[in-house]
């Protein structure tokens, strides 16, 4: 369990994290989503005490991270794939990290095996690819067999095999009862990995809910139907708050009603339906809607298009 209370981080005049509160629960994967510069990494750094909050607090299992007797046993963190001395071998890096907690060679070799680094463990980290760096970062996070894992963009730079491996690893860690907190800017990755989402925009929490709820709440969820009596149906369904658009002679898109309501209305009016499809918004759409006003570095694409016309 990770608990943030009124957490604020300012760098000079810039507020990176603006008064956020959350509880990250064990046994599920909690995704941390937000545009670049939203404050995700800063929040994660504050959890492990690398950055000091300007005010507020964040605790792991009831205590500040630094106050635990065995921090690496409590939390495994991958905050930066390249948080490793480039002149040291992967094996020696893990050995030195583990040594602080009396974690020995056996466990080091175990995590090297788990992360598939056997063939490069003796090589200096400076020559590692981004993907190997990520695997080493994950190996370091797993060293203490921690009850809580914090992974900042763990699939960054991984090949499809690696992405699948991280996804399965993260799911199985949560199934074992651990707290897993995972950030990503890949919405599609979140959709298949996370159970719960915290969406951050400009340092504030925009949404904190189960993934299914975030998808359902996304406005623009619409129902598509095909019917030979489309015009009659449109009349039957017309009501305040309902938007009906006709995409072809026999098809309609209805916003503001559920598929069930549309079906029932059609039955009451005695009209024939050939197709009735509840269109769920993709996580991507939901995310775009949530963050459209909270993007730190917005592209000027619309303005540019205007000019080029």
């Amino acid at each position, binding site marked *: 369990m990770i608990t943030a209370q009124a957490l604020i981080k300012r760098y000079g005049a810039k507020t990176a994290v603006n008064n956020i509160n959350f509880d990250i629960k064990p046994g599920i994967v909690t995704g941390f989503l937000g545009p670049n510069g939203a404050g995700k990494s800063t929040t994660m750094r504050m959890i492990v005490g690398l950055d000091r909050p300007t005010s507020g607090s964040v605790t792991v299992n009831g205590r500040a991270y630094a106050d635990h007797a065995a921090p690496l046993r409590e939390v495994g963190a991958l905050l930066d794939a390249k948080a490793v001395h480039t002149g040291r*071998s992967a094996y020696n890096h893990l050995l030195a990290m583990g040594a*602080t907690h009396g974690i020995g060679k056996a466990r080091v070799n175990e995590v090297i095996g788990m992360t598939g680094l056997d063939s490069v463990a003796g090589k200096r980290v400076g020559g590692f690819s981004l993907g190997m760096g990520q695997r080493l970062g994950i190996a370091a996070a797993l060293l203490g067999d921690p009850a809580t894992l914090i992974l900042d963009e763990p699939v960054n730079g991984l090949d499809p095999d690696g992405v699948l491996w991280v996804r399965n690893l993260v799911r199985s860690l949560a199934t074992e009862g651990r707290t897993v907190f995972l950030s990503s800017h890949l919405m599609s990755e979140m959709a298949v990995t996370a159970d719960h989402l915290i969406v951050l925009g400009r340092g504030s929490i925009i949404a904190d809910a189960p993934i299914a709820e975030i998808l359902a709440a996304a406005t623009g969820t619409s129902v598509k139907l095909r019917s030979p009596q489309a015009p009659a149906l449109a009349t039957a369904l017309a009501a305040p708050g309902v938007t009906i658009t006709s995409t072809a002679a026999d098809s309609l898109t209805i916003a503001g009603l559920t598929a069930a309501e549309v079906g029932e209305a059609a039955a009451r009016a005695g009209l024939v339906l050939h197709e009735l499809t509840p269109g769920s918004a993709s996580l991507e759409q939901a995310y775009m809607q949530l963050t459209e006003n909270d993007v730190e570095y917005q592209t000027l694409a619309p303005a540019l298009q205007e000019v080029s016309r």
Partner: protein
Amino acid sequence: MTTTIAPTTLSRLSLGRVIHSEWIKLRSLRSTIWSYAIIVLVSLGMAFVLSSALSNPDFGPIIDSPEHTLIQASTFGLSFGVLVVAVLGVLVISGEYSTGMARSTFTAVPKRLPALAAKAIVLFVATYVVGLVATLGSAVVALVVLNGNGLQPAITGDVISSILLACLYLSLVALFALGIGTMLRSSAGGIAAALGLLLLLPTVLMVFASVTQAQWAVDLIPYLLTNAGESMFLGGELELWQSLLAVVLWAAVPLAGGAVLLKRRDA
């Protein structure tokens, strides 16, 4: 909700373990091995050159006692060694900042000060041992050369204590550099500052003193790190306790400053 993982009391953080970790870190970098190897090799070479020169009447009259000549020859290489150790001391911490390793270190040791203390202890002991190897090896080289040239220095208590004090000076310079590196967090800046204080400051102060005739500047010169350090084992204007205290302060002040900043800043 069940948590299957119970942290065992066997694997908690402790200073002894952090020291072990820092020892693994120090010995697993090539820069450490190179630095220490260079100190030993240069020291042996200097001992040979200096003992040959000082015991050969062709180079000038032999004025010092054979024992003092032995001390000079055994420790001569360390005046170069302190420069190497100053670079190494800065790199031990600045290398962690430049590569990002510092974030891993301070995630494992979130209270931070034990990590700095462990670095200081490991660096001090390793440097002292390397200094001993260099000076004792140099003493053997010098003894062979001096005996061959007819001078027969006795291995007195003075010789032994000078060698031990020279190694202490070397180790304290390493701590001085570690403190500078911790404060500045940059390899280039840290090395420039450490070498500047070691090499440049004595010259600058000397020129300043001779130009302005300021007595305070003249009085200050013996307390500069390099001068106080060398007078620890070669003798000079200062009493041993004065030069030792000066060198200890030169190491302690940057380390304390580094500790304060380390605790206060974001890692």
